[in-house]
């Protein structure tokens, strides 16, 4: 179903669609195994378009927009298999903007001159985002962070927003890439991007505060990350199925267009329904939540559903393509691989459901 957008939102979506027209499967292939695995110039371009500072309040020189606008852009990023970490950069920017005085990195993060990304995960499964094992200690202005963060999208990053436990609970800390005691080790992923383990040993850090009115900064950033990934997964699903429906309309077997076979039609409808349901969910959440205080249960719900359905849908797309879908040459496999990566980040579907049980009060 169409979204009911304002004319400004429509303009924004069209501008994002134009941006991704220069991305797509071919470009994503080109970045496989490159360092960094994206074009820094394109990240700066997205900064110039205002996207990285989209959620940052006017008062901190951002656009002061909401989740609907973020979702519109990230949906397009997902569609285009965009390699530049626009979503992670944009949500980090809003975190950097929360203090009474914004963090010094904010301006460069908003223009794309620097890349700051969240580093919130520690285990492969079952993290409690509000109880990191990583510790932060020391006086204000002389903080030190020690611990290990995993699955960090550190490729090309200049700094990290690290969750760490202090005496009174979790805090969000900024750690520079080149800080002493900060080391990275990277692993290649199936979609050609990298995930890193970030080891911190007495690394100097700045506290990234939360607004008084908002929830804890770690929770706020975590929920925003879940939402952003859900919107991007939505875009991945959309484009994968469009490619597939197009194929069903032209491929012939048994003398007929395969899209005329009822069994394939119904499978196509099944994936379409999943995508529509996720789109409604994402945009309802967007319309009713402030970016830095998203209801944690809804954030978990969106990421659970997006992670599960994106894998299901992109797998079904390969099945509907038949043999050709299984070749590396064909683009459709790239959507499955991107879905594998995004689904796994910040907790997969099962992990989100486990959190949801606790935070949605299901068993109360």
């Amino acid at each position, binding site marked *: 179903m169409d979204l*009911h957008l304002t004319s400004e939102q429509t303009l924004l979506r069209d501008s994002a669609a134009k941006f991704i027209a220069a991305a797509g499967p071919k470009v994503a292939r080109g970045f496989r195994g490159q360092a960094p695995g994206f074009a820094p110039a394109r990240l700066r371009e997205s900064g110039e378009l205002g996207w990285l500072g989209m959620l940052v309040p006017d008062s901190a020189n951002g656009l002061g927009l909401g989740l609907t606008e973020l979702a519109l852009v990230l949906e397009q990023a997902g569609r285009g298999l965009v390699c530049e970490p626009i979503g992670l950069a944009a949500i980090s920017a809003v975190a950097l903007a929360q203090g009474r005085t914004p963090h010094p990195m904010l301006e460069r993060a908003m223009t794309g001159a620097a890349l700051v990304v969240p580093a919130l995960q520690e285990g492969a499964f079952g993290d409690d985002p509000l109880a990191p094992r990583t510790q932060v200690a020391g006086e204000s202005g002389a903080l030190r962070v020690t611990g290990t963060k995993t699955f960090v999208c550190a490729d090309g990053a200049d700094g990290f927003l690290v969750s760490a436990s202090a005496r009174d609970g979790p805090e969000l800390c900024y750690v520079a890439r080149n800080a002493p005691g900060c080391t990275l080790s990277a692993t290649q992923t199936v979609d050609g991007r990298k995930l890193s383990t970030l080891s911190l040993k007495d690394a100097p850090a700045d506290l990234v505060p939360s607004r008084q009115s908002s929830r804890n900064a770690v929770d706020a950033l975590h929920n925003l990350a879940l939402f952003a990934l859900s919107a991007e997964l939505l875009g991945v699903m959309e484009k994968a199925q469009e490619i597939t429906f197009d194929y069903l*309309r032209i491929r012939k077997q048994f003398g007929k267009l395969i899209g005329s076979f009822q069994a394939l*039609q119904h499978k196509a409808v099944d994936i379409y329904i999943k995508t529509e349901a*996720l789109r409604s969910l994402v945009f309802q959440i967007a319309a009713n939540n402030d970016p830095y205080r998203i209801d944690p249960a809804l954030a978990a719900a969106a990421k*659970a*559903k997006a992670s599960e359905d994106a894998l299901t849908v992109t797998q079904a797309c390969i099945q509907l393509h038949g043999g050709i879908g299984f070749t590396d040459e064909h683009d459709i496999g790239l959507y499955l691989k991107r879905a594998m990566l995004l689904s796994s980040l910040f907790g997969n579907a099962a992990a989100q459901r*486990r959190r949801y049980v606790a935070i949605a009060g299901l068993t109360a």
Partner: protein
Amino acid sequence: MFRHDAPAEAEFRMEVRAWLEANLPPALRGRTTRPPPAELMPWYHTLSRKGWIAPHWPRQYGGMGATLNEQIIMTEELARVGAPHLPVQGLNHIGPILMEFATEAQKAQHLPPIIEGSVIWCQGYSEPGAGSDLASLSTRATLEGDCFVVKGHKIWTTWAHYSDWMFALVRTDPQAQPRQAGISFLLIDMHSPGITVRPIKTIAGDDEFSEVFFDDVIVPAGNLVGKLHDGWRIANALLGHERLGTSNPQFALMALDRIKTMARASGVIVDPAFQDRLAAASINVTALAALFSHAVELTNSEQSPGPESSIIKIFGSELLQALNELLIEAAGGHAAADRPIATDFGEVDVATPFLQARRVTIYGGSSEIQRNVVARRVLNLPN
């Protein structure tokens, strides 16, 4: 579920909640089957007197003319208090159709009794040989002078045995090609001579449905809605409305509550494997509510969801079945009990709603038919 009420909305919600708590008889709460008219209609009249019977109808026709948010609040509060399912054929189906297609005289005759609850309507579409393939219906209406003579057989007619009026699709041109072009939309007084109604007992033990036999029933020509042979278009114009109605997340929310109560009673609520399925179900209910809000939003802004309402029908009906399967699981050894189960958390009916939920993917266009519709009309897949 997503929204935070604006101050005026919050006030409205509290008013609705307090009024419902005070006025809905306890015996009508949390019912899994629709109570018979003798029990249900007094509640209909109460709502009607309060002016809340038709939130979505314009004020000129006696509705509330409520905003979208007010309608949603109303739905949520009705679900919250466990209100019974009202007869909707009048309020949601023929009412809107008459507003769009009927003459002023027809509107004046039929709309007020719907608001008042002085008549009950039923929908005469399906026939034994025309279920999924509705266009092949064969109930004949022959124009003789200023009357139609109706002969034929309708089936799966909800509440026909309690109804005063039927809006029916009848064949007025047996030769027409395509067959849809020979169908008209007729209002039939159920008290007319020549009508026989036979209730159908369902596997869930209720009598929601009937068969209706027409043996040369005389219907005044003035009961035709719209033009002769134009019934198919009229019926389909508001099919989206019907699908939206049956996909109201109210039913899913009530099912979720029933699961939680049963799971507490059987003890399975503490099993993380069950919790995982409950979480998945609850997340899907949230998604259904989002789809529904989205569709209502589009409908209210005059962008009809059109064939995309089929998506909500498929998603909502299959989710309702999945929820009832989870209910059966939560009930454990009680799954097959044919009465409500008395527990420390109140009575919970298990087998009845489970069996009832079998119907939702069959009636109002089966899931298979809906998928065909979406494949052709939304995805433009080839024929």
